[in-house]
């Protein structure tokens, strides 16, 4: 008996999100079999299972962490779309956070839900359009995009993104950033091989920052209560 338009919206969002996710899943997992049938060579399931054990388990753990960490950031509509369209860390999450920040939406509010969904949907559509255009222009564009002089630019998209985000977030609370940044720098300095696992190092770094932020929050609340 919900009449609030936002409640109705949320209920439908979950229902549609689930249906579309299942359909996307069926299409994506089914496609290799359809293509295999057309090529006359079905997937080698044993080799796929061995491959899954060698790399898939790592990505499964990573997916669980991504689900736990990013779902609250993105809200319902944003989460379904982001998990369907991928490229979370290098695009969707910073994009949604940037939009949220810009309009001042607060976590868990209806406004945050709407802004995140608009942001992730727009970002996904831009990627789809650019990739489609790029694929159409692949022959003429290939020499330009593969010019050796430009390679460092495209190899450093993620550092460029995180450099810009670093200024944006560190200036909000420089004290909060000092400890996680120092600890991460020391860790990566002592064990440079960790660089290949940076996406996993987000978890201890995030936990540390959240812990410090919680301590500060509790202290401020205690002082305000006095």
């Amino acid at each position, binding site marked *: 008996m919900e009449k609030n338009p936002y409640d109705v919206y949320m209920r439908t969002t979950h229902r549609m999100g689930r249906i579309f996710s299942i359909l996307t899943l069926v299409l994506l997992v089914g*496609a290799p079999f359809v293509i295999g049938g057309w090529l006359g060579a079905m997937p080698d399931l044993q080799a796929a299972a061995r491959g899954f054990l060698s790399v898939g388990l790592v990505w499964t753990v990573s*997916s669980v962490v991504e689900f736990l960490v990013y779902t609250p950031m993105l809200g319902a509509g944003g989460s379904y779309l982001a998990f369907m369209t991928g490229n979370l860390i290098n695009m969707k999450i910073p994009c949604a956070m*940037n939009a949220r920040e810009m309009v001042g939406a607060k976590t868990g509010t209806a406004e945050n839900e709407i802004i995140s969904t608009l942001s992730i949907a727009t970002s*996904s559509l831009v990627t789809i359009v650019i990739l489609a255009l790029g*694929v159409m222009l692949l022959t003429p564009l290939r020499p330009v995009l593969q010019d050796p002089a430009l390679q460092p630019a495209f190899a450093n998209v993620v550092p460029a993104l*995180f450099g*810009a985000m670093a200024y944006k977030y560190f200036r909000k609370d420089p004290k909060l950033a000092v400890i996680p940044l120092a600890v991460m720098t020391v860790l990566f300095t002592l064990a440079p091989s960790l660089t290949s696992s940076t996406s996993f190092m987000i978890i201890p770094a995030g936990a540390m920052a959240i812990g410090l932020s919680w301590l500060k929050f509790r202290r401020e609340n205690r002082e305000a209560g006095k």
Partner: protein
Amino acid sequence: MTILERLSSGTMYLICGAIVAFVAVVCVVFMARAWRAGKAIGMDTARMKRTITASATFSVLPSVGILLGVIALSGSLGIPWPWLRLSVIGALHYETQVASAAAEQLGLTLSGETMTAQAFSTIALLMSVCIMWGMILATLFGKRYLKKLGGGDRKAAPETEKKPGFGDRAMTAMFVGMVSAYIGSYLGAFISGEGLLTFRGYWTPLVTAGVAALAMAGFTWLSEKKNMAWLESFSIAGSMLLGMIAAVLAGQ
């Protein structure tokens, strides 16, 4: 017809294009619904428009980077499959790794010369299976998880009625942690990448991040102090572009 020619044939474009089109329609549906719901709960349409503009400009450069991933994989998997993978569900840093691992299990290296029809269908299956868990978890537990957190199903209420909680700070802190991990990795790679504390490691990411951060400082100053608020929508994309130009100049 070679296997690579078949992998870039019209049939492959049709299969992959249909899935990309399906996901594009899903995005449009979610976007239209969110817009209507935003208006229904009294959100300012100018803010929603700003969200769309900022997200579009933000996504252009990373998308061009993702296009390079398509080009990189097209040499071994043809064009349509990498196009599908990187348009839907995939991630730039993930695809090559998983495709290589699958090829390895088949006793191959990831290259067009050694590719066979069965190797392709096996690699394609593994690429799909390894990264589908986020979607499965969202389908099975998304609603319950958000309800438990008290976030997703909260009633539409004006901001002023809510007590400031820890949620926002936690999100910002999570992001501070994420950025710290990446910046720390660039610093560590430079300091010890070529031997412990030698300061001779790979420095282009550090320079790129540094220039992007400085550019961001410049954009923030202009938008906050010089009444150029319109710049805000382009600040991340502009800073990234300047950072990437610095990477080209560093030329490593």
